[in-house]
């Protein structure tokens, strides 16, 4: 076991010895900071508004103002309607609106998990193929350690890396958000527009959910890139294929959605958010359980293919 920890330690050292890895962290930090500054200086005023004790009257006045504006300016309609709807939700449920804060900023930044996916794909794609590129694979595989164990240590290292990026993103978003917007307590409630209407939830639960959904795509695509890397021993191909599929995934599903079998496509199932809040599945016959089973099957296939390619094939010369 200590042996296995040493292997993971080795992989982490190799990873962080490269400048590119640090650039990834710098990019995440820049995005968290930049996003915060943009929200702070270009955000909608109403979001930051602090309401007094008489917030009900304030909201009603705001609604009247917005309705009046809509009559004069037809283009204001869409945004104003949303604000009015949200205000009405607050009024009907007697929830005092809280100003935008650091927690909400962390929640909004969950879309950056796709950037983490991108970086994880790059690392997963390189972790095997680089050993072939550097020709260090020979010295790696002539140790008294089975190839399966080396493969597993590399895969676990990829997951640890993804997790490190995730923690880093959460921490930097939270710090940037707390400094720029302040915090409404330890675990404030947030009101969100969930497609059928507005819902109030506690923010930590929402953060866990939205980042968690992002992780599904991350793990699947990283595993895919890892497999391609093990089979073709080329990082370029693994990165290219994985990123292309990640980007084009939804389009592929939409294009093929007329066919019944399209529900078995990986990308039709990576977005588990589609089953939340009683939404209709994109293709009839799909359910949360269905998607989880499909994802599990893909995962097993990816890992089995990577394992077969890595442990069974000859490591011959150029």
């Amino acid at each position: 076991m200590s042996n296995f920890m040493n292997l993971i330690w080795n992989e982490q050292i190799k990873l962080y010895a490269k400048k590119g890895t640090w650039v990834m962290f710098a990019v995440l930090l820049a995005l968290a900071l930049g996003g915060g500054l943009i929200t702070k200086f270009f955000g909608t005023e109403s979001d930051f508004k602090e309401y007094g004790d008489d917030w009900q009257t304030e909201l009603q006045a705001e609604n009247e103002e917005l309705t009046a504006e809509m009559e004069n300016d037809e283009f204001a309609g869409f945004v104003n309607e949303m604000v009015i709807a949200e205000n009405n939700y607050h009024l009907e449920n007697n929830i005092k609106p809280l100003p935008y804060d650091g927690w909400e900023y962390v929640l909004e930044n969950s879309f950056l998990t796709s950037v983490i996916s991108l970086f994880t794909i790059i690392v997963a794609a390189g972790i095997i193929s680089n050993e072939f590129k550097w020709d260090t694979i020979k010295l790696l595989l002539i140790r008294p350690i089975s190839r399966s164990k080396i493969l597993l240590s590399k895969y676990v290292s990829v997951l640890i890396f993804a997790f490190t990026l995730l923690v880093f993103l959460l921490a930097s978003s939270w710090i940037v958000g707390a400094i720029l917007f302040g915090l409404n307590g330890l675990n404030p409630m947030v009101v969100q527009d969930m497609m059928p209407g507005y819902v109030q939830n506690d923010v930590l639960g929402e953060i866990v959910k939205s980042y968690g959904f992002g992780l599904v795509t991350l793990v699947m695509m990283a595993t895919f890139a890892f497999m391609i890397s093990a089979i073709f021993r080329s990082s370029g191909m693994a990165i290219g294929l994985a990123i292309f599929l990640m980007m084009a995934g939804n389009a592929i599903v939409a294009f093929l959605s007329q066919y019944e079998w399209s529900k078995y496509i990986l990308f039709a199932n990576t977005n588990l958010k589609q089953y939340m809040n009683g939404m209709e599945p994109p293709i009839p016959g799909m359910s949360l359980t269905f998607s989880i089973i499909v994802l599990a099957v893909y995962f097993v296939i990816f890992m089995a293919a990577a394992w077969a390619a890595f442990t069974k094939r000859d490591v011959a010369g150029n």
Partner: protein
Amino acid sequence: MSKPAMQLVNLKKTIGNKPIIKGLDFEIRAGEVFGFLGPNGAGKTTTIRMMVGLIDITEGDVLIEGKSIKTDFKGAIQHVGAIVENPEMYPFLSGWKNLKQYARMVEGVTDERIKEVVSLVGLEKAIHEKAGRYSLGMRQRLGIAQALLHGPSILILDEPTNGLDPSGIREIRKYIRNLAEKENVAVIVSSHLLTEIELMCDRIGVIKNGELIAIEEVKTAENKEGLKEVYIEVEPMETAKAYLDTHLDNEIGVGGKELSMSVKREEIPHILKSLMEQGISIYGVRVLQATLEDKFFDLIGENTIE
């Protein structure tokens, strides 16, 4: 005789339908330096890759300290330290950190042991520099260091003197001899630098087109028939040649100002004496050792790859 350190049993490798290695059978004993000699494409590296489990064995087996590399990979490979072709290191890590990588993969390699090995290969000064900045010679030393870390009983070195300067070569050679003689390590050295093999090895195996065509002790490899090639610079040439033609059975060759002939060592003084008695001036005599190189080319003929 003691148990062999490594044993190749009818070792075969077929890629597609093409037999690459056609059944190798030999063994390497503890404490000997075994030279693995052959032209490019003969199958040296393929054989070495099978010895260390990098490629599958089609038929036969490699036994290391009695353990099969096929069925007991860990048990077998733990006795082996190896360089396969060029010793490539992680270019972005220092020499020291490269060695640490490999140290972590086996039990009981301490920092003291790493330091010991580093000083053995004479790399103390550069050990904390990035390996990417190393010269080929330095990488070669680092490669040998990583192979020695865990104190293996079998050392496999593919072209170990590649890229080393003459003094480096002499050092490594001395070190390899030392390992074999003092620590009873079995060393397998593949090379096409024939003079190297000759100076370093106790035995050589010659491989050609995937087959072992000769295996012999280096000491007996020279002068098997006791004949030496002798060159004598004489004047006048014609008189000398005519004289020797009539008095010797051997064929006399002419090259430049020299006559050449293959004779036994004890014949040389007689030939010189009789030439002088004929009033022929002798300006120089040189004796050519029958080198391994000649042997090698005799054995393999042309360097053909089938």
